């Protein structure tokens, strides 16, 4: 949202330009210039090498793994997010503070620590290690572990977007529906869900972006086995460390394009939402 205001009366002409230059210069040097350069470097030798870099088997597998993980994590967190938001706002029970703290925790934790945590639970010498080995289930260094950590890190977004909206709309419409004979499920489907749909959409977009971009936690838990447990982000690192810069940049560009798409979608959704304080799009999307 760019809410704009009249420039302050008597704000010094010179002062205004200084601020503008300082702010825009900072953004250019930190964000725009580096990103543009990567796009340039990827395509400076033409589309061919770039395409080759993302269509080889390892890269294709990384894309597949990333999509599979995201396709599991996002719906799971969406369902959880909506249910949790309703429980937190509309129900009364003790321990609401703990629920809120736990939901926010993924935002305060380093992703490496997240990976460690799941390793300690499901790794060979972990709490469930022996039980898993007995039953032949592989969680760490395999897809299930990667899915779990991705769910962890992308957990808060739908909840945090939906909670304030639920609070704001209040219970009156839902109460009116129940006096008119609607069951709780009907009320939920016809009254609550439509009211929160933009908040949910916004949260889903943030969740997806976060899941796609996860790096630290999957790095720890996946073992980074090329062609087996590599996500796109891990692939970028692997290519770079193998001195295949074109390969690294090309994969990075794919991810960057997804990120830019995310930005566009976020902006569109923001405009649909009537909320006035839509300026912070959730605090975290990717690590």
């Amino acid at each position, binding site marked *: 949202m760019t809410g704009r205001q009249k420039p302050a009366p008597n704000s010094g002409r010179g002062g205004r330009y200084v601020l503008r230059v300082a702010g825009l210069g900072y953004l250019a040097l930190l964000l725009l210039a580096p990103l543009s350069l990567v796009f340039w470097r990827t395509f400076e030798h033409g589309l061919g090498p770039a395409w080759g870099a993302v269509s080889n088997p390892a890269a294709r597998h990384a894309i597949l793994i990333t999509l599979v993980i995201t396709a599991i994590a996002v719906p799971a967190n969406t369902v959880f997010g909506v249910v949790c938001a309703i429980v937190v706002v*509309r129900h009364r029970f003790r321990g609401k503070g703990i629920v809120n703290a736990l939901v926010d925790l*993924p935002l305060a934790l380093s992703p490496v620590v997240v990976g460690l945590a799941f390793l300690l*639970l499901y790794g060979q010498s972990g709490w469930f290690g022996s039980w898993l080995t007995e039953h032949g289930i592989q969680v760490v260094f395999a897809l299930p572990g990667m899915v779990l950590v991705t769910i962890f890190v992308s957990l808060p977004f739908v909840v945090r977007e939906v909670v304030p909206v639920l609070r704001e709309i209040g219970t009156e419409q839902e109460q009116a529906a129940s006096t008119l004979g609607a069951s709780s499920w009907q009320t939920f489907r016809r009254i609550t869900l439509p009211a929160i749909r933009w908040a949910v959409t916004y949260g889903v977009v943030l969740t997806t972006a976060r899941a796609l971009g996860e790096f630290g936690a999957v790095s720890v838990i996946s073992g980074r086995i090329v062609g087996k447990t590599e996500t796109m982000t891990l692939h970028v690192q692997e290519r770079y460390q193998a001195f295949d810069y074109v390969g690294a*940049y090309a994969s*990075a560009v794919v991810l960057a394009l997804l990120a830019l798409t995310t930005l566009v979608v976020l902006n569109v959704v923001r405009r649909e939402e009537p909320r006035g304080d839509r300026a912070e799009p959730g605090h975290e999307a*990717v690590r």
Partner: protein
Amino acid sequence: MVEAAAARPASPARPGAALAQGFVTAYLSVIVLLPLAAVVWRAGDGGRRRLWEAISNDQALAALKLTLAASVAVAVINAVMGTVIAWILVRDRFRGQSVVNAVIDLPFALPTVVAGLTLLALYGPNGPVGVNVAYTRTAILLALLFVTLPFVIRAVQPVLLELDREMEEAAASLGAGSLTILRRIVLPNLVPAILSGVALAFARAIGEFGAVVLISGNLPFRTEVASVYIFGRIESGDPQAAAAISTVLLAISLAVLFGIGGLRRWATRYERA
């Protein structure tokens, strides 16, 4: 009145409510609580001495010190630049303003490892402008500034928008010049928002991994941050040390969040009638 209506509970006897609560509790326990407990428990597993050794050895301390110093520096820079950028997005008017506003969210949407890569491309060994900060502490600062960019900006923007312009007009009618108005009217009202943004930026910075891992070179005692050190301990098969430092990081995060939360409440004491 509306508050009471919103808080009116669904009858707990409804089976739907119990199911929902059960689902939420189970999900959170399995996904968040259990893993967290595992880390904290592992940190202390092996006794107090091993815990102390894990935390107080030179390399660990160096990593922690570097992380804290870099995060504080980044928090301060963000407090200033974040406010400046929020200002020009709200109070100024120039071509492409809405594009700039949208771009602010890029660090939220871009994978951290890609962020690190882009910075490396421009400011690393093969960079076109001849600047090479790879494997230096400057690189760490750069990477952290990238990923923490939106926090202060997004915290300050709505406050700036809601700021009662009449307060500034009143100050002008009482004889205050633009600089005085900025200093005595605008900034004091922005401080709580800046503090919020700084807290979030700090918490994010101390745990950052992906953006830093490529560009900093991870040289122990020089450019190794805490998250990278933890990663190293895991790879070396020393999960206990990793868990110990992780717990320290978590404790610092929580302490800062609570501390700044308290500071914020103090700074806005005038709001509570």
